[in-house]
């Protein structure tokens, strides 16, 4: 009880300090978090989650309202309404989070709402005037606005939104450019290159500039959290023989501007792999090595072509290495989310292989027993290493 009373007093005092201009709202939040009661953490997370869900619900509600075309209002009235809504949510967010510091989590959620409404405004204008100049441009403008807001107000939720919107833009651009002939089968390559580059560069940034404010801006962790699943999903597609086969045929349909964009992504991906290899992360070299192998396999499949079944075997081995490697990297780096993500990939792979026609030639039960034994063996090795580590820590 004494601790709770202290934290409540600290909260009241820190709000007074902010009001008197002794400390900024950010400094007050930092002081409160330093003395935070451990029991408050889940409550704070729940508040943040609820506030963000509320902001998302309102934001998507507005987008849905916009998409439904309100005939009863003139263009000018619609624009004024959205402009007021954007300005209002930013003003309320500033008041709650920066000026008084009284409701920082709700304030952050209102910043997020402002970003969503900015995107809704862009799409509304497109819809009102039947703009069809270049559809993905609105996503790029939205991502730019979200990035600027996230950097200025230093919000992890908005940083995550900005990374997701940017990813949507990349997907939309390449989807449009490749939506012709056999080229769409090269789309998962975009996911591998873009996702891998995002994960590699974000991980290296997080490791190298640990003390810099940008490392805590939410961008590095969002880049990692979005990049890795996107890259793994792209690789997963090629574990099916038809997709691997189609990839070889796609090279004739990729040229000009699209080829240039692919090369740019490939350079970014290689840079991401190099950055991973050079960072101080315990699993950095292993991650860079596996990513390098995936890049090499994709390039060979695109440039040399050949039998889809042979590539499917190669990509299956690589996907297994990635999924199990993610668990191992999470274990080495003490990152529970990586372990969980790796377990999900392993589970998805096992289910997919069970139903995949590619494995039908093999007795499925034998394949499952083999895969299960392999996973059990890896778990055994990991647990043994963990025990040794704990013993060494106890001795020292």
């Amino acid at each position, binding site marked *: 009880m004494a601790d709770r009373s202290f934290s409540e007093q600290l909260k009241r005092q820190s709000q007074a300090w902010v009001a008197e201009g002794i400390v*900024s*709202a*950010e400094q007050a939040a930092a002081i409160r978090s330093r003395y935070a009661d451990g029991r408050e953490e889940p409550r704070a997370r729940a508040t943040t989650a609820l506030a963000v869900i509320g902001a998302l619900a309102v934001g998507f509600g507005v987008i849905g309202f916009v*998409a*439904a*075309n*309100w*005939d009863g209002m003139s*263009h000018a009235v619609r*624009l004024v309404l*959205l*402009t007021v809504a*954007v*300005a209002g949510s*930013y003003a309320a967010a*500033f008041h709650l989070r*920066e000026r008084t510091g009284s409701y920082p989590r709700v304030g952050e959620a209102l910043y997020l709402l*402002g970003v969503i409404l*900015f995107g809704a*405004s*862009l799409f*509304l*204008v*497109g*819809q*009102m*005037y*039947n*703009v*069809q*100049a270049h559809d993905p441009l609105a996503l790029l*403008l939205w991502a730019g*606005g979200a990035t*600027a*807001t996230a950097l*200025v*107000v230093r919000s992890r939720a908005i940083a995550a939104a900005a990374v997701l919107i940017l990813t949507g833009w990349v997907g939309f651009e390449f989807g449009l450019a490749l939506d012709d002939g056999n080229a769409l089968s090269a789309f998962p390559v975009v996911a591998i290159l873009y996702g891998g580059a995002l994960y590699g560069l974000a991980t290296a940034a997080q490791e190298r500039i640990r003390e810099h404010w940008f490392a805590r801006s939410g961008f590095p962790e969002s880049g990692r959290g979005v990049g890795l699943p996107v890259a793994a999903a792209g690789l997963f597609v090629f574990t099916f023989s038809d997709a691997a086969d189609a990839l070889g045929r796609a090279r004739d349909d990729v040229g*000009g*501007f699209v080829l240039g964009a692919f090369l740019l992504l490939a350079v970014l991906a290689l840079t991401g792999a190099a950055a991973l290899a050079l960072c101080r992360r315990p699993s950095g070299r292993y991650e860079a090595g596996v990513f390098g192998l995936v890049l090499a396999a994709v390039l060979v499949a695109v440039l040399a072509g050949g039998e889809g079944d042979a590539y499917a075997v190669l990509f299956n081995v690589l996907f297994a290495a990635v999924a199990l490697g993610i668990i191992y990297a999470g274990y080495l780096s003490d990152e529970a989310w990586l372990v969980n993500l790796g377990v999900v990939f392993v589970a998805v792979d096992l289910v997919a292989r069970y139903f995949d026609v590619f494995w039908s030639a093999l007795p499925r039960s034998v394949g499952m027993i083999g895969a299960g034994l392999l996973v059990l063996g890896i778990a055994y090795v990991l647990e043994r290493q963990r025990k040794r580590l704990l013993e060494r820590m106890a001795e020292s």
Partner: protein
Amino acid sequence: MSRGRRIALVFVVCVQLALPLALAGLAAADLAFGEEIRLKAEPVDPLDVFRGNYVVLRYEISSLAVLGRVDRGDRVCVRLSKIGDAWFGSHAVPGSPDGTAICGHVRDDAEPGERVAIEYGIETYYASAERAREIERSIGRGQLYVVVDLDDDGSARIERLEGNDDD
């Protein structure tokens, strides 16, 4: 929040408020000052006219012969002639012809004399569910026309849709 970041926040918010308004202003100016023409159109999929809240349209000038070699994405223009209430075009040329012309981008490579699909940026029309039903009835009764505003450079923007009964 430091003073510098407050100023940055004000700047970011102002840009986010101004950008949609500026885009709307540019579009409104195009509509106000452009040359109004009427094109015959039809929905791409007559069985599923409105996907969500928009209809995908094609025009008689959406597929035309080109007079020069073009690569995918090249800009071409079509000189338009008025026949009755509507405007029509017979061929596309790289570059800008004299007179009333609409310009777009070709979807494929093509040799001189070959037909090629052309996109003018007026292939999508948004409408409310109620308006969509009205337009569907117009399509069922007869022809569909799209009133388009043309800029000096040949770029086009949809003003409205008209059915036969809207004349």
